[in-house]
């Protein structure tokens, strides 16, 4: 997030797109609810009539995968109506003239033909956001899990840059991160393109730094992403070490994923349960869980916080860091002689400029949001206040692209996937918490009543849902949350493996899977 969570109560106009925040980030959503109660206007763009849509002042029910078109249409209106922030554009950005030229063709009427959202509503949304003193954008995987995830994010940046809604209280571009330390995993350098602290592996200065720090030659080019690695399993990738990820259920195209992991010569999984992924491993190493592990995590607003152990682990379970050190030491690798987490985190701080002012003791009270470049620095709750990392904000002349697969005679219904309030990811945790079943005992497919009739299904009965990659059986639930022609299911339940169907395509830059769009066919069972 460019802005801190406390800023969520402060915007005049809030634009939520592709975020089901009341279910996926419920505590963050309380901030938005307070802003709305205070009088802020809420615009919600989502294919489904989610909880946020119900409380919005303007709901834009766009077709799945058409976000770029909607955002181009909004940019067009903001420019046409003279709602641009000329000072901000002049002083902080580059490329606006070309962008202005580019968006002149993408009218709201054109956007209506792609998105299905009435042009007048696109205009209203643009007028509201463009006129706001403090306009804030919030998004989640509904923006990024597309083949055009990068263009979607760039389109949001365009809106914020042209209106100057960056670097001030109650503004910004705010992605909500989905896991308690997914931000920290990236910060720590578990990325094929970045060393710790998002230092590009292709930068000679960074290469020299890590060559010295790690005492060995390093590859000068980027590594491959997990998506590519899974494609190359059995071909050029032959061994994997997976820490705490149920790849088999969480990733798209389960059959492909299972085949990939099975074709490895050697798979080592570190986890707290024998997950579907761990069941495929040659060696499974038991890790300590949350509540048993001392460590550090970083939240969606870049706040670096301590996690603390409260109870001893079961049996012989060991902390992840200990396990990795043991493997590394036995392979003769240097720099793994740790016997507690504190010096590991302190080493991360030393090699990472965004954590340079931090250490284990300084984060005791959760006060710091990175970047914290030195020990006297108070942290950075709000990014981009004076300048952007690369100097100026860059406008991107994006084009709308169709999803990897579009509906056809064979697969005439859009499936979009996501999460639910009561369950978390693949239910390795919530599935083992007593009482959750009372609220959500099973998965069901949310189908508009008109579609139930059209495909000759019945509410509460099972149906067969097929995509180009496979089919599953799933119970039908009639609801107006789903618009006609679009159905929804979560991927949380192992007995309804929705990710058997997904996997139509990937964003070419980030390799994020298009989990939000999958044409399917529905048939009664």
């Amino acid at each position, binding site marked *: 997030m460019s802005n801190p*969570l406390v800023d969520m109560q402060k915007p005049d106009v809030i634009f939520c797109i592709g975020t089901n925040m009341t279910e996926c*980030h*419920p*505590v963050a959503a309380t901030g938005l609810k*307070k802003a709305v109660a205070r009088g802020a206007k809420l615009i919600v763009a989502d294919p489904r009539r989610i909880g946020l849509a119900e*409380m919005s002042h303007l709901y834009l029910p766009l077709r799945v995968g058409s976000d770029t078109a909607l955002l181009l249409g909004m940019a067009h209106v903001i420019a046409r109506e003279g709602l641009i922030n000329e000072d901000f554009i002049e002083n902080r950005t580059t490329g606006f003239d070309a962008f202005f030229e580019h968006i002149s063709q993408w009218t709201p009427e054109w956007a209506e033909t792609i998105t299905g959202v009435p042009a007048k509503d696109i205009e209203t949304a643009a007028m509201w956001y463009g006129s706001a003193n403090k306009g804030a954008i919030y998004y989640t995987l509904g923006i990024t899990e597309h083949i055009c995830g990068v263009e979607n994010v760039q389109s949001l940046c365009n809106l914020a840059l042209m209106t100057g809604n960056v670097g001030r209280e109650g503004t910004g571009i705010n992605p909500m991160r989905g896991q*308690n*330390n*997914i931000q920290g*995993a*990236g*910060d720590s350098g578990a990325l094929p393109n970045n060393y710790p602290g998002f230092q590009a592996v292709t930068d000679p200065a960074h290469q020299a730094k890590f060559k010295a720090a*790690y005492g060995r030659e*390093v590859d000068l080019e980027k590594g*491959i992403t*997990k998506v590519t690695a899974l494609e190359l399993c059995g071909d050029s*990738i*032959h*061994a*994997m*070490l997976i*820490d*705490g*990820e149920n790849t088999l259920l969480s990733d798209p195209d389960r059959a492909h994923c299972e085949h990939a992991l099975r074709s490895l010569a*050697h798979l080592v999984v570190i986890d707290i349960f024998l997950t579907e992924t761990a069941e495929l*491993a040659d*060696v*499974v190493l*038991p*890790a300590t*869980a*949350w509540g048993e592990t001392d*460590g*550090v*995590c970083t939240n969606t*607003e870049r706040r670096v916080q301590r*996690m*603390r152990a*409260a*109870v001893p682990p*079961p*049996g*012989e*379970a060991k902390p*992840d*860091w200990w396990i*990795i050190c043991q*493997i590394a030491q036995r392979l003769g*690798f240097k*720099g*793994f002689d740790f016997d507690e*987490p504190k010096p*590991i985190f302190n080493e*991360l701080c030393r090699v990472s400029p965004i954590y340079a002012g931090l250490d284990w003791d300084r984060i005791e009270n959760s006060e710091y949001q990175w970047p914290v470049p030195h020990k006297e620095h108070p942290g950075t709750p709000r990014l981009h206040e004076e300048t952007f990392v690369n100097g100026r904000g860059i406008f991107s002349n994006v084009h709308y692209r169709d999803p990897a697969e579009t509906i056809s005679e064979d697969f005439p219904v859009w499936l979009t996937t996501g999460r639910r*309030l009561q369950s*978390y990811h693949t239910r390795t945790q*919530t599935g083992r*918490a007593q*009482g959750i079943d009372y609220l959500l005992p099973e998965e069901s497919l949310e189908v508009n009543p008109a579609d139930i009739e059209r495909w000759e299904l019945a509410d509460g009965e099972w149906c067969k849902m097929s995509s180009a990659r496979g089919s599953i059986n799933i119970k039908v639930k009639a609801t107006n949350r789903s618009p006609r022609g679009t159905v929804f299911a979560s991927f949380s339940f192992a007995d309804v493996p929705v990710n058997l169907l997904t996997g139509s395509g990937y964003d070419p830059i980030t390799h*994020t899977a298009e989990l939000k769009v999958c044409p399917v066919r529905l048939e009664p069972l």
Partner: protein
Amino acid sequence: MTHKMEIDGVEVAFTEGETILEVAQRHQKEIPTLCYDPRLEPFGGCRLCIVELEGARNPVASCTTKATPGMVVRTSTDTIEAYRKTLLEMVVSENREVDVSPLRGYASGELATLRDRYEINGSRITGTTSGTNKTDDDNPFILRDYELCISCYRCVRVCAEQEGDHAINVMNRGFHTQITTEFDGLLKDSACTFCGQCIQTCPTGALGDKKALRAADQVGDTVPEKTRTICPYCGVGCSVDILTKNEKIVGIHPAMEGPANQGALCVKGQFAYDFVQHPDRLNTPLVRGNDGELHEATWEDALDKAVEGFRKVNAEHGRHSIYGIASGRAPSEAAYLMQKFIRVGFGTNYIDNCSRA
């Protein structure tokens, strides 16, 4: 803008907008409250926070009265304390019991604490108890023991103001006041999301944490140990306290001063903690045997097997044949060492985390 006022004979500064209660609390005045939760709008329901205000005919509720320049306030005169004691006696007399398990909720001991402070034995005022328990609500999380309800409305207000859910409200008035949902039904059939905020703000334990109360016998009336940490679920990073007794996790309290959540939690963070000590947990390493099955193994054997596989693949296929996937759930030390393992061990950038799917 700062102004001056007088509290208990001492001149103090305050900023515009502060209430008398807020100013007094900043100056360590222990004014009793029951309907007050600093996260919520002032309510003025319980009247325990009354103070003497010079120029006012009657005592005023300090939680709803804004400080103004030149005010002269006395927080603890004999008259005020007598009023407070009488009010508390009446409140206590309406409840079936006052001493409740600390597992019921974060604030559940507030009434008992005040009863002890004012040395009330409950004998001066006796009579009917108020509130009707919702015994047919079989939800596994929220106990609705309204015989302990004192109509402070903190639950109703936290649901509306903090959560924005408006799932519960007030039915009837006076002695027959009852907290309820639409159509007096089950929480499950209301707008309730089971975030547990009502449990945690309730000052009497009328609303209780049913899951935590399973450990009531072990815990007794001792306060469980608390360990401050961060919720294991989404990326918001809510601060929580894990409650433990005899090395068992018995419940979760929200951390009221958590920078990301300011006391708020959701159903997962509040109630979905017992996966940690679930019997399905892996408690020993497993190694795939020649029979194709996973078997329990010692750490020595498992680590040897893990190392042997990496060494063999590295020798046969080279360093670009080995890949690491770090967790978005484990702490940063794990992610840092995963990337270091790949970068130091094999000199490649063949490392990723689970953020792409």
